[in-house]
């Protein structure tokens, strides 16, 4: 479903070239739930942005459903994102000028044909538990509600892949549990999920886990994770 081979993202700074992601390999099959763990600034979000086609790698190749992203134009990549990928940002990522319901409907504007949009958006809001806030503007929503609306928006075009960048980072424990339950349900329904997180408690949800450290991506064997848990030794202080 998603396959990254030797992808590197390098930035030029005053002190020289910095590799935010360095020769990363990742494979997330159809229906898989992939977690990418790592401390802040390790390059997780940059990796996720490349997997979602938001930025192009400096080198290496990303394939989504067999399509080499490097061969696509910007608009072709945008069309692929609209069609195949739902993205849940670390922050709420809602457009402040329109209601929750309209936020959910926005991605449908970028598909050639879309019908029953309003009903589907309402159904999704209902599914994520905020149907009663459909007409509310983002500024009046709580963090948890905003995150739920963002998830509903990511699902509106029936994507096959859901990419989430620390979707529970700023939520309380109960809301985090509810949101993760929602992700698990979506995964069980066949949606491929790639998620960046700090939270080691989410590991049992994952079919694959990777660790990002200073731009280097390492796959964690399931057995190792189950035996050791995610410790500070493995992932650093952030995960404790």
């Amino acid at each position, binding site marked *: 479903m998603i396959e990254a081979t030797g992808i590197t993202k390098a930035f030029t700074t005053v002190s020289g070239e910095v590799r935010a992601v360095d020769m990363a390999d990742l494979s997330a099959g159809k229906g898989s739930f992939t977690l990418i763990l790592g401390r802040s600034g390790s390059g997780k979000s940059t990796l996720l942005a490349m997997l979602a086609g938001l930025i192009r790698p400096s080198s290496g190749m990303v394939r989504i459903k067999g399509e080499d992203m490097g061969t696509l134009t910007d608009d072709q990549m*945008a069309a692929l994102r*609209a*069609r195949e990928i739902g993205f849940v940002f670390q922050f709420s990522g809602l457009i402040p000028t329109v209601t929750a319901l309209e936020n959910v409907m*926005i991605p449908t504007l970028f598909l050639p044909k879309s019908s029953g*949009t*309003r*009903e589907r958006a309402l159904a999704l809001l209902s599914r994520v538990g905020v149907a009663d806030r459909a007409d509310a503007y983002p500024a009046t929503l709580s963090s948890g509600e905003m995150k739920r609306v963002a998830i509903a928006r990511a699902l509106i075009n029936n994507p096959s892949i859901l990419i989430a960048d620390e979707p529970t980072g700023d939520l309380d424990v109960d809301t985090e549990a509810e949101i993760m339950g929602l992700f698990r349900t979506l995964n069980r329904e066949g949606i491929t999920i790639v998620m960046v997180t700090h939270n080691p408690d989410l590991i049992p949800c994952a079919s694959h886990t990777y660790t990002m450290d200073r731009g280097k991506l390492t796959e964690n064997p399931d057995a190792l994770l189950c035996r050791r848990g995610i410790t500070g030794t493995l992932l650093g202080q952030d995960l404790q």
Partner: protein
Amino acid sequence: MNENFSISRFITAGILHRPARNLAITVCFGLIAATIFSTQFLVAGTAGTIGEGVSRMGADLLVIPSQYALLLRGNQIGPVTAGTIIRVEPSSMRIATSYMDAIRNVPDVAMMSPQVYVASPSVPSLSASPVDIYGIDPITDFTITPWLTEPPVKSLGHGEIIVGSAISGEAASSIPLGAHTYTISGRLDPTESAVDHSVFMTLDDAYALAAEPGILTPDAPPIQPGAVNAILVKAATGADPSMVGARIQQPFPSTTLKVLERQATLKPASKAAQGLPALLNTISLVVVLAAFPLVALIAAMAAHERQRETGLLLAMGAPRRSIFAVILTESLVLALAGGIAGVALSAAAIFLIVGGGHIPVLQGFQLPALSGTMAIAATAIVIVVLVAGLASLVPAWQSSRMNPWEAIRDTR
């Protein structure tokens, strides 16, 4: 189609959600539109006023008897004044109207009309000053009728007269002159010249009146039908009156008749009046040119403010052309709203000020016709929208070319 949601709803929401910012931008566009509208409205009004003034400026050339020209040169009668080119000076020297056949064929002669001076009797019931009586040709006249206070319903007819502003008598009332009475068919605006104490009748009536005993002074030679004191000539628009005058003079010996040009002192005032539209047009141009970078800056700031939104839209799969359209359309909508509001308020203010006639300097200002006003309004709005569109092109293009990830990350 997406039920209840569309790009236009998205744009509208974007505009309405930032009322303070967008109101400020709209006011800015409104000021530009108001300036363009008001200056162009004044340009059109000034052109109309000048046109009206030019139509009243009388003749460009006077074709007069040579002896009369000699008297003028010797300053025994006086210089050719503004009054002279509307109504010829009282004189007993005449030429035949038959010269008109030759003058008519001279190139660039747009109009010509004869006038004959009859007499200046003292009629205390009409005026404290002696009343100058003239005969004019109502069909060809172009110097008297433009001064009428009311547009004439029909040409001056037999037994009818046009009176100067200083002559007593109501419209349609009868005035006795000689053995006949004449009906006042029209009154002239004040000219601040001898025209104000004059009475104008048809040439035939003038010849008939002149034939009555006691009308002409004893030393004045009789006025034969067909004799006139001057033929007033208007040169074609754009033609040089001096050249036209030379062409009229050419076939005739200077001992017979003389062609005089309108007094040169009238030209500077005319030129100054005609320079006003150029000044107003320059103001319009300067405003548009000055507004362009300002609008571009506002558009760039607005686009920058929406950078995060733009990044999110791109991340959700918006094609670049959609982003370009959203940014550009928002700017155009604000420009259209500001343009309409600016023009409406400006028009209301102008009509209140000019139409009210409270400002003396603007009295007599010719308001452009409704169709002209609408055209000016439409032009002002179109210019503002064009300025907004052109100034927003670069910010809209830059926004559409943003990398979604960087746009989002930079504004977090």
